[in-house]
């Protein structure tokens, strides 16, 4: 299971909508508790491709985000990106470029009126959906 605070989801969604039709992207940092991951912060990074069907995280921003996570006692949990006009599931390119099997890959689809966010574990070109729980303000991390 992976948890995400509602405020962080809203931040991610606002950024993705602002960047559309270009793909938005970033990192997620937080804590691990056994197999569970708890996202404590969503980092909004520059898509250096500035493209509608591709993204590459800015390495300098990536480095700064990793250091910020460490300073807060968090660990890198994975990344997120938007699919402005396609479903919330990994494309062949997403799977091919998912090099870190310990990472969670969040994909936010803006294809329909109601956005869809899913999290995936990707290994050997196989994507498996993870249970994603969005926590309301009043909820404690399980």
């Amino acid at each position, binding site marked *: 299971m992976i948890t995400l605070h509602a405020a962080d989801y809203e931040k991610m969604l606002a950024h993705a909508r602002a960047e559309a039709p270009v*793909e938005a992207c970033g990192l997620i940092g937080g804590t691990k508790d056994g197999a569970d991951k708890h996202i404590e912060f969503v980092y909004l990074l520059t898509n250096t*491709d500035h493209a509608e069907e591709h*993204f590459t*995280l800015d390495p300098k921003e990536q480095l700064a985000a990793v250091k910020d996570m460490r300073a807060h006692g968090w660990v890198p949990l994975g990344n997120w990106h938007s*699919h402005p006009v396609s479903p919330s599931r990994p494309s062949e*390119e997403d799977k091919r470029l998912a090099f870190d099997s310990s990472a969670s890959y969040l994909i936010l689809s803006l294809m329909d009126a109601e956005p869809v966010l899913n999290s995936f574990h990707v290994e050997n070109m196989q994507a498996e959906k993870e249970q994603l729980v969005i926590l309301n303000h009043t909820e404690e991390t399980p």
Partner: protein
Amino acid sequence: MKITVAGTEKQVADGITVAQLIEDEKVETPQYVTVTVNDEFVESGKFAETVIHEGDSIEFLYFMGGGSNGSDK
């Protein structure tokens, strides 16, 4: 000598190169890893010749990219 790898202090052999450190650290898919030494990015073609010094701070960053190209719409 002592260096810091991903925020953790480690003891390594004097004169170790970035390429050797990648091997020692068993970095997965090293061809897709970006390396910084004291916040300076090292070109991948120079891993074998870049010598790490006492007190250096090293980070390994996975290339992160992808996209909706190839998605069924």
